[in-house]
């Protein structure tokens, strides 16, 4: 029941426009309806959607769309650009105090993931910034919240300051700050209790903690699945406590995460980190462009690349590149490469991740021919070692033998040989291009696998 992405939504409208010579203002209006719906289904706040659609319409009705040959793509491009701009801006790292300790406060609703994020953040600060953080257990309300932070502290071998549940959070933080001086902790991360933004008493408590020592960062921790209410939450926390940044959690789920856009445009505070899993190193910097694609449901090229990176053997890849360059690529390498691609999972899943894959004509139902892959494999396995390394020696009687041995036809063998030659040529061009400074991940040979 996943919702359609913007690209799919726009399909119908684009199809209609394609037949026409010109794109009218009415067409843009119609496309904007799709944009509006896609954003609402991604949980972007309605007010934010309205402002956004207005801005995009103004740009879209202008020249670039009208003259464009592919208006649909143009609209998506504008939408994505604007979205990225709205969400991005400067990527600000963590603000550290000139005079230690740096104080970071974690605030948010119940269940947003403050305690887990506190652990992850401390982990990053130690690993990447070489800091010595102290975790402060200031959640005295939720049962076992302190134990949770202590367990995390133990996992990470980091000190956790706690005074149990009978001391007020303000007093806990006050003493923790003193302790940090004694123990020379240069960062103090305060894990506060989850609270409703309309709970005046508890919001006052945050203000009181804040008043002890001006924190360098106040991070609002927000669940990526939050709906329309994200705006109220961000606004209230910002107004009463004053936040400096946002951490978006549980983004490893399948939510579109429109809350990110809502918070960003209402509170005007940067999203600094995203939580991508339950492990202690699953906290990543925020990428505005990825988030824009995700909200629009436009395929996630970055995930694809990451998936490839996780599965492709770095050494092998380097070896392969060398072979591309020196033109010593053989059928053995070809098989190797095919197997690596296969390891990444069903090809159809991979194709789905390609941006715009749904738009390419014929590809939407172009099932990748896994059978064809099998045939290619069989042909290669039917070759002698010599034939694999120097395919030039394959004459017609060898072809006959290979076809027979692999249970295919001579035509199939011919086709593969030709593809292999084309591939080699293509690789040569590509490696030249890469050396000119364009670093891009390519998967040559994939083309030949599509019918």
């Amino acid at each position, binding site marked *: 029941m996943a919702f359609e992405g913007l690209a799919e939504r726009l399909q119908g409208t684009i199809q209609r426009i394609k037949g026409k010579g010109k794109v009218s203002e009415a067409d843009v209006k119609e496309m904007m309806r799709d944009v509006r719906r896609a954003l609402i289904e991604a949980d972007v706040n309605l007010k934010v959607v309205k402002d956004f659609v207005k801005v995009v319409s103004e740009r879209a009705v202008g020249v670039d769309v009208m003259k464009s040959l592919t208006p649909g793509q143009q609209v998506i491009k504008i939408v994505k650009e604007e979205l990225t701009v709205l969400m991005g801006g400067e990527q600000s790292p963590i603000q550290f105090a000139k005079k230690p300790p740096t104080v970071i406060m974690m605030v948010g609703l119940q269940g947003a993931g403050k305690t887990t994020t506190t652990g992850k953040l401390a982990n990053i600060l130690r690993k990447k910034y070489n800091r010595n953080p102290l975790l402060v257990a200031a959640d005295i309300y939720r049962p076992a919240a302190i134990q949770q*932070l202590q367990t995390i502290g133990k996992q990470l071998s980091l000190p956790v300051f706690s005074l149990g549940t009978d001391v007020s959070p303000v007093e806990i933080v006050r003493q923790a700050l003193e302790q940090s001086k004694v123990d020379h902790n240069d960062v103090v991360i305060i894990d506060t209790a989850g609270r*409703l933004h309309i709970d005046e008493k508890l919001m006052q408590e945050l203000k009181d903690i804040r008043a002890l020592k001006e924190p360098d960062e106040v991070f609002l921790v927000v669940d990526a*699945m939050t709906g329309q209410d*994200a705006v109220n939450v961000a606004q209230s926390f910002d107004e009463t406590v004053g936040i400096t940044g946002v951490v978006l959690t549980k983004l490893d789920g399948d939510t579109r995460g429109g809350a990110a856009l809502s918070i960003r445009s209402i509170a005007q505070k940067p999203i600094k980190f995203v939580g991508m899993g339950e492990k202690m190193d699953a906290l990543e910097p925020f990428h505005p462009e990825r988030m824009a694609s995700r909200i629009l449901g436009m395929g996630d090229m970055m995930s694809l690349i990451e998936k490839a990176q996780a599965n492709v053997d770095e050494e092998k890849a380097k070896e392969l590149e060398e072979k591309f360059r020196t033109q010593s690529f053989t059928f053995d390498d070809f098989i190797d490469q095919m197997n690596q691609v296969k390891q990444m999972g069903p090809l159809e899943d991979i194709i789905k991740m390609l941006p715009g894959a749904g738009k390419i004509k014929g590809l939407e139902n172009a099932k990748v021919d896994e059978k064809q892959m099998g045939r290619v494999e069989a042909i290669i396995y039917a070759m002698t070692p010599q034939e694999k390394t120097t395919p030039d020696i394959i004459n017609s009687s060898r072809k006959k033998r290979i076809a027979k041995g692999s249970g295919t036809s001579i035509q199939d063998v011919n086709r593969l040989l030709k593809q292999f030659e084309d591939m080699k040529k293509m690789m040569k061009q590509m490696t030249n291009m890469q050396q000119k400074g364009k670093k891009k991940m390519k998967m040559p040979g994939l083309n030949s696998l599509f019918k």
Partner: protein
Amino acid sequence: MSFFKKIKEKLTGTSESVSVSEKFKDGLSKTRNQFTSKVNDLVAKYRKVDEDFFEELEDLLLQADVGFETVVELMDLLRFEVQRKNIKDTAGIQSVISEKLVEIYESGDNSSNELLVQDAGLTVILFVGVNGVGKTTTIGKLAHRLKGQGRKVMLAAGDTFRAGAIDQLQVWGDRVGVEVIKQSEGSDPAAVMYDAVRAAKNRGVDVLICDTAGRLQNKVNLMNELQKVHRVIEREVPGAPHEVLLALDATTGQNALIQAQSFKEATNVTGIVLTKLDGTAKGGIVLAIRNKLKIPVKFVGLGEKMDDLQPFDTDKYVYGLFADGLEQEDKNELN
């Protein structure tokens, strides 16, 4: 008889239900005030039921996380009804709105809002849901509620993954005064369930409530693990789990629908507990969930105290959202 009168009658029928509805109203007051004042603004602003009125009502519902499709469906129903009854001005439209909301919610499905507890023998209730929605807290509250009804309750600490989760359930167990079956952190949750079911049978427990670790519905391994937990319970007690309750955070947006669907596929969810409804979020997506997946809301969480769990009643829910508007209408009618 107009809609509000029916509701009023229902609510004032017994003294107990009044206090419950007061509680419900209290918890929802923030939600309701915001929402109904908007509805009232709307009614005041647009005296006529016209396109502008519909448009603003549509916005109002979208902001309650009701979701695009459901809102469109409701608007169609409303437009039709307004035409049929020839409603011209906005006074009186509130009852039509709430009637139609209930209609969409129930949509011919008569599955019960009530919790299914066996009259005799062991009842097993399994809690599932994504991380941080309030499963453990809800279990504590539900245990308190069932114990108050004179039942012997036992809890199973099936969240062996999250740091401190077992301790958290134990605290609730102590608070409520019920036994908690647990193993160490990191142990197999299915094994915990096996132990718990055995213990529950041996000690003549009426209701066993099983906690599980929060998991995002797109994590295949974790969903498989949940299926295994479900299977173990099923094997040990025929017909169990009698209820599989999905805890759903009221602040969740449209992803809740996917959550409900995935958890239903994995564990055959029988009901929803809508948590954190004491905030400003409205949890409007439950309309779509019931409408599409036929999963009714059984309880709502209205705070962090032990008795802050209330049974869900569709009419009361809608009444809570529209109370002010309805009361106004009531006065108008008397005049």
